[in-house]
């Protein structure tokens, strides 16, 4: 299945793009998608302990299963205000 990944802030700056697409087998998780993204964009990534993920605008655990057509956002530490 195809998963669109959005990168923001420092991650986007390092990758040089805010949009990646990864091809994953059915049943793949958020963690699988992140691994694939790191393979496609071999940059200095943010430690997973401070990285958050959202699917279709809701925060999810890295163990969540993805579905074809999901938009996965990789969210570095937020700092609004």
């Amino acid at each position, binding site marked *: 299945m195809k998963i669109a990944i959005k990168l923001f*802030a*420092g991650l986007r700056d390092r990758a040089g793009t805010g949009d990646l697409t990864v091809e994953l087998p059915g049943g793949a998780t958020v963690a699988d998608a992140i691994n694939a993204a790191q393979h496609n964009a071999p940059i200095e990534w943010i430690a997973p302990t401070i990285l958050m993920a*959202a699917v279709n605008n809701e*925060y999810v655990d890295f163990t969540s299963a993805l579905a074809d057509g999901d938009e996965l*956002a990789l969210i*570095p530490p937020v*700092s609004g*205000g």
Partner: protein
Amino acid sequence: MILITDQPLDPKTLADAVRADSDGAVVTFEGVTRNHNDGRRVEYLEYEAYRPMADDKLQELIDEIKERWEIDAVAVAHRVGRVDIGETSLVIAVSAAHRRPAFEAALHLVDRLKEVVPIWKKEFFEGGEVWIGDPGSERTTA
């Protein structure tokens, strides 16, 4: 009222949006770009938001404080793009019959916004730039 915009923010618009004849208190918070942070001289900030998730999360936080405190209405505006020193990046207005819940709810909303709303701040300081909370993103501009 939830507003994410690259235009200057006007606190009066938000305060007026929340006030009603049954309210005795209107608390307005402005987050402003300081000229210093962490011992560095700040030149300006740049904000980025992930929309529409940021709007959704702000709405959830408004629902959260309305559930927890006896308040009437809430308005939030966040600026994106470049925000210079002394300019306002965030405005929150909360109205209530009584003052204490308005104060407490407004502070809580700012605290939570900084935890969960997908908005990021890049600090351009004297000699470099960094995405706040992401030290690995720091670049020096010699």
